Structure formats: C-alpha cells, structure tokens
C-alpha cells in the first residue's frame, strides 16, 4: 500500500510486519521515531505478541536483545552514533554468539564534537564487529531491507544492521509502499533458531575459548559472511518475486555500461549522485555509478566486476578513516587490487554537511581529468582549517578549536556576503 510518510514511521511499520517478539528501545536521535512508533503499536495492541522494553542504555538494549534472541525470540533494536558506540561490546558479543538480531542504525556522526547529523562514521566503525551491514538508498529500500534482514540474519544466525541516513531518510516524508502482512508472512517464516536456551534441551552458550579454537571460531564468522554474499542476492530475488520490487542485493549499478569514470557511494547520497551523473551524461561524459548496498559482507568480486571495464573510480564517502583517508575506499581498493585502476577518495558530508550537486559535478569532472589528490575533502573550509593550524603552530594554548573556527567562519562569511 502506497503511503506518504516519514521514513522512521515506514520502518516502524515494516518492523511490525516482521512480527518482532522483543523490541529494546533507548532514545537517541535520529532513530527515536522508529522505536516510538513501535512502542505505540505494542501499547495499542496493533503489534501483538511483542515485548517492548524501555532499557536504561544502548548497552542494555543490545544485551536484552542478546538474551531474548538466545531464548528464541525475534529481537530488534535501533540506535545511532554514540548509542552504537556505547553498545559496542555487546555488538561484538551478539555476533560472536551468532544471534540473529536486527538493528536499525540511523547513521549519525560521532562526537566529539557532539553532532546529531548524518554521516556514516557510526556503523562503519563497526565494520569488523561481525555484523552484516546493509545500506538503504531510499526509505522504500529501508523498508524492504528490514524485511530481508530478518530472513538473512535468521538463516545465517548472524546479526545485521540496516543502515539508513539519519534525518535525510529517517525524517524525510516520502511515498513508500508498505507491503501487506500476508506478503511479509509469505516471505518471512517464523524464527526457527539454530540454538536456543530451552530447559528441555539445555546448552551452554558463551564458552571461554582459548588459543586452541579461537581462530577457527573467527574464521567461521568470516565464512558466515562469505555465505551471506551468496544469500543476499538470492533473498533479493525472492523478494522481487514476492513484492514485485527490486530491492537489496549486494551492489547496484547505474549507467555504468560504457563508463570510463565510476562514482562509488552508499546510502541516500546515491540519489544526488545519480542526478549529477544524469546531467553529465547529457553533456557527454562517460560516467556511471556503483552503489554498495552490502558493506558487510563486502562484495569484493561484484565490485571488481563492476569496475573492471572503467578507467578510474571515485569513492565518495561520508566517513573518514582519520590518519588514512577513506573507509569505503580502502575496501574498494581491496576489490580492484592488481587491476591498475586509478582510484580517488572523496570525503563528503561529515556531520551533516550538505553535499550540493554543484560541488559533486565539479568533483566528478576533476576525477575524470584525474586532477584530484588521492584523498580529497568536499567543500572543506580550508581557510578556517589553515588558520587554526597556524594558531596551533604559534601558541601552545591556542584556545578552543570550535570557537576559533566559528569565529573564523563568521568572519569569512561576513567577508563573503558583507
């Protein structure tokens, strides 16, 4: 059923259709509207057979989900940013124990400085946590990926994060097709756990494993993700059969057939990129787009195949591996290693910084001309940065950075528009 609705509400409805049995809720922007929506549904009775638990922290949220999932209940939670970091120990534990928890990450920057706006630093910080990570481009895809996520997680007995851009998606009102309960039920069978805490058949979950078996355990987690590389496209196909919609999969390409330059990105920014690419195609540029949906497992083979015929690529990412450059870019480079392809990294949109089409077009043209530095920063205020760097060179106690920079920016803004 097509509805005009907020992304968070759409996701809440999608989760409810998946018949979760335990939902752990802790407020953090920008995911809050999702659990608020679910809480209302549970309380009203619209979502029956579900325990909605107001926990005292994200650490508890994930811990409660660990318990409920291990006890055989379909378990869900949502978080973002600091919340994700606060639960990190439990995040690793959930995957280590092989518990198929589904968690929405409404992607948001990580402080300090505290910032509630979107980038991908939070979930990408958990790239090695053993969780699968799927990135939604639109709210429709967010809805669809959640439905697929339960099936994927439970099939593999591994947890999964469905990542959607905070505010940009979560708070955006868009037209979304919410499937019917019958459709979802037909696609998603009830949770049949691979292991469960059951007095009738006791097991001990969570043993201490020493050097004699620890590497094997880690490898098996890796092997699970390799299995997911096969399962994700399969589930996307099944999804299409059931719901009549292309959604999910490992990657998605756009106008890539004869592209010499390929722009790679994840999440909602792909929409803007496609608009720019359309414009540039009209102008005759041979440019295309590769969207990565599955960041974990990372589809090395598919990315390599998508890029093998281009001349250069640019990874535009909303994350920064401080001291290195790009996080997604590093993964992409792994995929194309040995091909000799020229690759560039552009870090954009950190902490919610707008990514205007104009800036992108300028960037893509530079990429085509291979005039870019290996790592570049889109719309970075170099003036402010340089002034601060200069101050720090001169004075040990150079004052608070943020205040200095606001001052600088204020001055520069005044200069520009004044």
């Amino acid at each position, binding site marked *: 059923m097509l509805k005009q609705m907020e992304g968070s509400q759409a996701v809440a409805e999608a989760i409810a259709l998946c018949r979760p049995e335990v939902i752990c809720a802790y407020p953090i922007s920008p995911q809050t509207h999702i659990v608020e929506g679910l809480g209302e549904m549970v309380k009203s009775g619209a979502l029956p057979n579900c325990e909605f638990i107001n926990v005292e922290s994200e650490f508890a949220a994930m811990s409660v989900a660990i318990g409920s999932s291990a006890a055989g209940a379909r378990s869900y939670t949502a978080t973002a940013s600091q919340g994700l970091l606060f639960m990190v120990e439990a995040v690793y534990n959930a995957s280590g124990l092989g518990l198929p928890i589904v968690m929405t990450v409404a992607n948001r920057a990580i402080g300090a400085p505290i910032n509630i706006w979107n980038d991908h630093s939070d979930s990408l910080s958990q790239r090695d946590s053993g969780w699968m990570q799927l990135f939604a481009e639109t709210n429709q895809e967010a809805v669809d990926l959640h439905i697929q996520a339960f099936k994927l997680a439970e099939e593999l007995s591994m947890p999964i994060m469905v990542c959607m851009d905070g505010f940009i998606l979560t708070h955006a009102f868009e037209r979304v097709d919410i499937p019917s309960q019958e459709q979802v039920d037909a696609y998603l069978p009830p949770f049949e756990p691979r292991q469960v805490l059951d007095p009738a058949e006791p*097991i*001990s979950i969570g*043993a201490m494993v020493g050097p004699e078996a620890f590497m094997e*355990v880690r490898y098996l987690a890796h092997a699970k993700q390799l299995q997911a590389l096969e399962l994700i496209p399969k589930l996307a196909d099944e999804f299409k059969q059931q719901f009549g919609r292309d959604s999910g999969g490992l990657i998605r390409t756009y106008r890539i057939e004869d592209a010499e330059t390929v722009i790679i990105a994840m999440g909602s920014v792909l929409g803007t990129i496609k608009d720019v690419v359309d414009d540039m195609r009209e102008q005759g540029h041979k440019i295309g787009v590769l969207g990565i949906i599955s960041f974990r497992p990372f589809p090395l083979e598919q990315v390599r195949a998508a890029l093998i015929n281009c001349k250069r690529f640019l990874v535009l990412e909303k994350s920064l591996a401080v001291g290195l450059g790009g996080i997604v870019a590093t993964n992409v480079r792994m995929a194309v290693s040995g091909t000799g392809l020229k690759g560039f990294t552009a870090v954009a949109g950190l902490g919610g910084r707008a990514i205007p089409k104009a800036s992108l077009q300028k960037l893509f043209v530079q990429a085509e001309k291979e005039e870019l530095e290996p790592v570049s920063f889109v719309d970075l205020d170099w003036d402010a940065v340089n002034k601060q760097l200069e101050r720090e060179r001169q004075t040990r106690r150079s004052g608070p950075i943020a205040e200095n920079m606001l001052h600088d920016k204020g001055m520069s803004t005044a200069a520009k528009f004044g």
Partner: protein
Amino acid sequence: MPSKPFAITLKPGTSLNNLTGSWRTARPVYLDRLPPCNNACPAGENIQGWLFHAESGDYEQAWRVLVENNPLPAVMGRVCYHPCEGACNRGQLDSAVGINSVERFLGDEAIKRGWKFAAPTAASGKKVLVVGAGPSGLSAAYHLACMGHKVEIYEAGPLAGGMMRFGIPKYRLPREILDAEVQRILDLGVALRFNTKVENIQQSMKEGGFDAAFLAVGAHIGKRTFIPAGDATKIVDAVSVLRSMEGEDKPMLGRRVVVYGGGNTAIDVARTAKRLGATEAIIVYRRTRDKMPAHDFEVEEALQEGVMIKWLSTIKQAGEGEITVEKMALDDKGFPQPTGEYETLAADSVVLALGQDVDLSLLDGVPGLEMKNGTVQVAPNMMTGFPGIFAGGDMVPSERTVTVAVGHGKKAARNIDAWLRGTVYESAPKHELAEAKNLNTWYYSDAHKTVRPMLDIIRRQSTFEEVQGGLDETNALFEARRCLSCGNCFECDNCYGVCPDNAVIKLGPGKRFEFKYDYCKGCGLCVAECPCGAIKMVAEDI
C-alpha cells in the same frame, strides 16, 4: 550438535570429562571413632548405637541394641553412676546428654510393653555354673544363655539381685523393676536356685556336671572398726541395715542416727534412716566434701532431704545416747590429722558404712588361685588361676558398682564361651577416640539437658517412693536427640552438601556416603564441616 556454533556453545555437563581428582594432595576418608560415652561405659554398652534408634522413636530397636551388652537397662537407668555422661562431649557444649535417663526410659518401656529377649542360638551342649545372682552373675548368665550355653545360678540368699536388692534402697530402685528384669533373664531358660550357698566350688561343679563356673558372690561383709563403746549404744553395719530393709522386720535405729563413712552406702543408709523416722541423720566423715567418695548428686539429694554431714570428724567414742567426735584437719598432703578438739553428738545408734569384704570361703582348697586384699585375682579374661573358674563383680579387684559388675559378667561370658570352644576371645580393636576437637559443634542446636522430674521433697523424707521420676516419651526423644553422634556418621548429609565439587555420593538411608575421588580436589571442607568427626584427611602419596 553440528548446527550449533562451534566451540562457543557447549553440551551440558561435559565437564565430567575433566577429572579434577588429580589436583589433590590429601584425600578425605570416612572413619568411625569411638564415642566417649561408649568408651567410658563399664558395661561396654554401645550407647551411641542405641541412642541412634531412640532418636527416630524406634524404642524397641534401641532397647534391643542396648541389651546386646546389658540385660538390665531399667535397673541401670536408676542406679548407674553414668560415667558416660561425665565423658559426653556435649558436656563441653551445654550439658551432657541424659543417657542414663533415656536408658531408664527404654528399660521401663520394655517392661511396660513386655519386650522379651530373642531366643538363644543353637545349644552348645556346655553347662556353666554361675555363683551369685547379683548384677555380675545375672549379666554373665544372660550372655552365656544367649550364646547357647546351659546356665544355672546358685544364689546363697532367698532373692535375686545381690547388692541391687540388699544394698540399694527401694527409693532408688523399686523392687518390681528389679524383679521384672531378672525374670526376663530367667525366661531365657536360666535356672536359678535360691538359698544355695556354694561351700566348695570344685565340688559343686563336679556334682552339677558344669564345664565352667563364673563366681560373683559379691562383697557382703560390712567392715568394722573399733570404737570404744558402752553397752547401751547400738553399733550396726550399713550392709546389715540395708539388707534388713528387705525383710519383714525393719531395723530399729532410733531417732538420732549417726552414720560413719563417706561412701555411697553411707548416704544410702542415712537417707534410709531418715525415711525410717529418724529426726536426725548425721553422717560423720573424716575428710571434706570434695574428698568424699559418694557421688555429689547423691550427697546433694541427701542434704535436701535433711541429712546432716559432719565434715572432718572421726568417732572417738560411743556412749549412752551420745558419741564423741574429734575434729580433724587436712595436712599438706590432704590427709586428715587429729586436732585434739572434741565434741559430742546425740546418737541412738551408730551405723558403720566403712566398706565391705568378700566371703571367699568357697574357694578354699582350689589350687592356683591368688588372693590379694580380700579379693581373688583374675587374668584379663576374668579367669582365676584355676582353669575354668572365672570370677567378677565385687569379689575381684575393681570399682564396686553395679555397672562394673554387669560389665564383668559380659566380659567373663565371652571368655567363658571362647574357653569352652577352645578358642581365645579377641575383642574388636578399639577405634581412636572421638574427642571434642574432632567435632564441628555449630551444627548442633543449643539444647540443655532435660531435667528429670524430682519427687516432692516432703514425700522424699517420709516414704520409700522412688525419688527420681522417669522421662516421658517426648522428653526421652528430645534427650536422645541431643546426642552428637561423636565420631560416627549419622547421615546428616553435610559432606554431601558442602562439597563444591559434587564429589560425594549419597548411598541412601543407612548406607552412608562414598567419595568420588575422580573429582575430589581435597579441599577438606567435608572434614571441617562434618559435625561428628567421622571424616579425616589423609595425605596422598605424591
């Protein structure tokens, strides 16, 4: 579990594969220690053994275990000076278990319910003569009969019981109790001939065709001392007084009676005199109360009844209606020495309670015997120097109590039985003693001894009713349950419970426990927390 996560998820209870017993440097072992009560009992009773059954209310079984060693529990429960209670470890906790009172309860219960001894085992064909129907003789006869020997008792007097009848006043031992317990022994087939004084033991054995004899004639001759006295003063001996209490003619002692001596007999006779109507019953004793051989509780009871005691005094002279006593003083070594101070006391009669001698005339002419201090010497197996003649009770050197006598009877019976079979009786090796330090007394509830009801003081001074009452069932049960079971497992489950390694197997009621040494790490908690000291640690050979 192929589908469950490797290594992280485990099957339950699989640690049983890990045999932690290899960590151990010392192992716990169960043992039985000798309870101090059993150790102290002159009659060799398995006190703890019978208390065990009494604790669960199975009084008949308790009685049966009791009479394995002593056929006279109702008597014993009244007249025994219960050295068991003196040794009882509970005495260090609150007060000793009232073993004696439970014993009496069981004895009385047996009489009330008419419990009989089990019929003797197969007849041995041997015949044993027992001389004297006192405690020692009756005990020997009982045990010998149980072993299948034919037993005859020759008793010089007209009634059975010996000193139990002629030495212990009724108010301590009602005669129907004595009679009942004697009869139960006779019911085993023991023949008892009264008024049959053995003049010559060898001749009596020959005439009766006896294969062995046990002599237990007792000590019935009152010791005398020289007291210068006028004709008017009546001087009698205590044994005669007490014996005549059993006849029709009660002794005439007058209103003011002086008893000379400090033993239990002196107390008995003074209390008897009081009951016979004496206004004054005064015991004259040459030393102090703490040196007095009489049991303190008896002294106490006598004092309560109005008996007076003149400490540190000797009788120098007895005149008409009065006696002269000399004050004594204890020297450095604690011996009384005359002081030259005199005092007179009114006295219608003087009763000498200075001990008793044995009439050994029946042994005249028996070769190989050794006499010493008026008693016959016996080997550790109770046999005299003449093969086949055994002796016990007051006529052999020992403490002269009913309980010791009963013990002699049992011991002699066992040795006679062995001798008759041409073997030597070997007693089971003694376990190490269960001492207070072996116990963990935390586990025992605080519970003071149940005081037996005492007869009202007025009635005690004027009648021969039994002074001390018995326990009823509830408080006998209570009392039995105060037993700590020193040194012997009573299946409290502590070892089974406190083992952090589940290394103790509970074998079920009556079967106790076993250690699973595969898992026992040797921590010693079971030993430390065993209430009764029935486990000890033994070093492993490493």
